[in-house]
């Protein structure tokens, strides 16, 4: 029983990160009709921006970043904020430079374009970030302590990652359901032309959405970095794949679908890796098996309602 709970805790920490990536992929698709395969790489950009700030502030080794002090807290905040801002900005630039000019082109062109952007980001970090070719340690800000409850180990990191994700989800749900921006975005998902006729600027909303979605991806990247304390130039590829899978399982264009999909992907991975001998190697197979099964039963995903002609 405690083993099952332990795997559940592990799975939720994974799901939390996947969900933040999946939401962006899902909403971008809903609004521009393109799957953004560079989304995880945008997260990597944020992570490396954050790492750069850390490395700059910690250069010389005068400051202990794990200490409970005001300078350490400021440095941490500055670094994390830099990560979010860089991710958001690069998402916006990416949209304006790559997707926007292609808005009249077939979606496959936009998809290929995003693959290219992903390459550019990964190779740029690899070649231009100092020591970017090697995996680099990311400061361990969260204490490595853990709590053991009846055999189940809960790390502070678990609490941080899952807690952050839950708070962000609620804030996001509020934003989507209750604010003017959220309504404008949903009106575009419902009917683009009607939304425009009511005064919604699809360009402005899309730009805002790319800023928001990319910041969430940046947050996912930072959570990933703080969880594993190791970052590398291609860490975003995994995020893209998992986020995309979660978004498709849940139904593209639906944030609750993305959330549900992410929880499912995390659980399937944990169950496959945790309970099947040598299952870790096959967890991706299991996830994609479930994905295919769901798409056969519900082509628009679990909560999807977008009509098939959009895909």
């Amino acid at each position: 029983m405690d083993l099952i709970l332990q795997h559940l805790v592990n799975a939720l920490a994974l799901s939390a990160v996947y969900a933040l990536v999946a939401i962006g992929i899902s909403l971008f698709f809903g609004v521009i009709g393109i799957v953004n395969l560079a989304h995880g790489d945008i997260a990597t950009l944020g992570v490396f921006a954050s790492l750069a700030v850390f490395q700059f502030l910690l250069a010389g080794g005068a400051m202990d970043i794990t200490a409970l002090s005001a300078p350490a807290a400021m440095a941490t905040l500055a670094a994390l904020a830099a990560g979010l801002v860089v991710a958001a900005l690069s998402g916006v630039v990416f949209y304006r430079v790559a997707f926007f000019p292609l808005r009249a082109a077939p979606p496959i062109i936009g998809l290929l374009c995003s693959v290219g952007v992903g390459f550019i980001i990964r190779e740029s970090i690899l070649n231009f970030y100092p020591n970017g070719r090697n995996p680099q340690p990311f400061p361990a800000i969260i204490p490595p302590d853990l709590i053991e409850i009846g055999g189940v180990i809960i790390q502070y990191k678990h609490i941080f990652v899952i807690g952050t994700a839950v708070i962000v989800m609620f804030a996001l749900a509020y934003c989507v359901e209750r604010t003017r921006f959220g309504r404008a975005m949903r009106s575009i998902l419902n009917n683009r032309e009607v939304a425009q006729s009511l005064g919604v600027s699809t360009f402005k909303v899309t730009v805002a959405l790319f800023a928001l979605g990319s910041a969430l991806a940046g947050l996912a990247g930072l959570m990933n970095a703080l969880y594993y304390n190791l970052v590398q130039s291609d860490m975003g590829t995994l995020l893209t794949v998992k986020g995309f899978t979660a978004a498709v399982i849940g139904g593209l264009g639906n944030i609750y679908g993305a959330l549900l999909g992410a929880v499912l992907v995390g659980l399937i991975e944990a169950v496959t890796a945790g309970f099947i001998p040598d299952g870790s190697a096959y967890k991706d197979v299991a996830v994609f098996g479930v994905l295919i099964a769901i798409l056969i039963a519900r082509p628009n995903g679990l909560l999807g309602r977008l009509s098939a002609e959009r895909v």
Partner: protein
Amino acid sequence: MLTIEKFSASYGPVHALHGIDLRVEAGEAVCLLGSNGAGKSTLIRSLMGLGPLVSGAAHFEGRDLSVHAVEDRVRLGLAVVFEGRGILPAMSVHENLLMGGYCRSRADIAQTLEQVVALFPLLASRRNQPAGTLSGGEQQMLAIARALMSRPKMIMLDEPSMGLAPIVVEQVFEAIAEVNRRGVAILLVEQNMHMALAVAQRFYVLDRGAVVLAGTVSDGVLTSNTGQVLHEDEIESAYMGEKT
């Protein structure tokens, strides 16, 4: 208020509209009659900036519409009720109404909302229901109510009677007439000539993308611009007759 001169639109090589001259004065209700494919919907979509390539001029209150992006035309005071109603199905009735006031201030929205709900009391009881679950007539009422939320000077309606039961059509047209009585100009595109003429003060007949007949309606008497008194059958034959 709305002046359209030599207005043409084409889908590639296919001319949907050619050389339309049309005008709607402030507070006036004008209907645009014509058979399927006559170009009526194309005209409305082009006026909203969603239609195909345009030549000629369309001015709203003296301002050239062509320089305004789609999303800015509502700010000029131009609202539209699309063919097939164009509600936002996954959003609630209340949210649809809020979206109608998207360009207005929060206080303004609250005030307008009160007036609109007073006009369509039914919508109050359906406030939190997804708009897609309303009946066809209710959706049409919602679409009109939503258009009112922007406090428009003119509303363009595209086939509001489409797919509705006769009794519901009457309610819808009563609502349109009421909106017009409150001073909002109406440009009504309709196939249901009888109902449309009951609301309108003037009419145009469109056939194959061109205006073939225009005139006024007063107490049920139809007079063409050439001074001829017309019967409804004659208007019908103006577009139905030539079709064959």
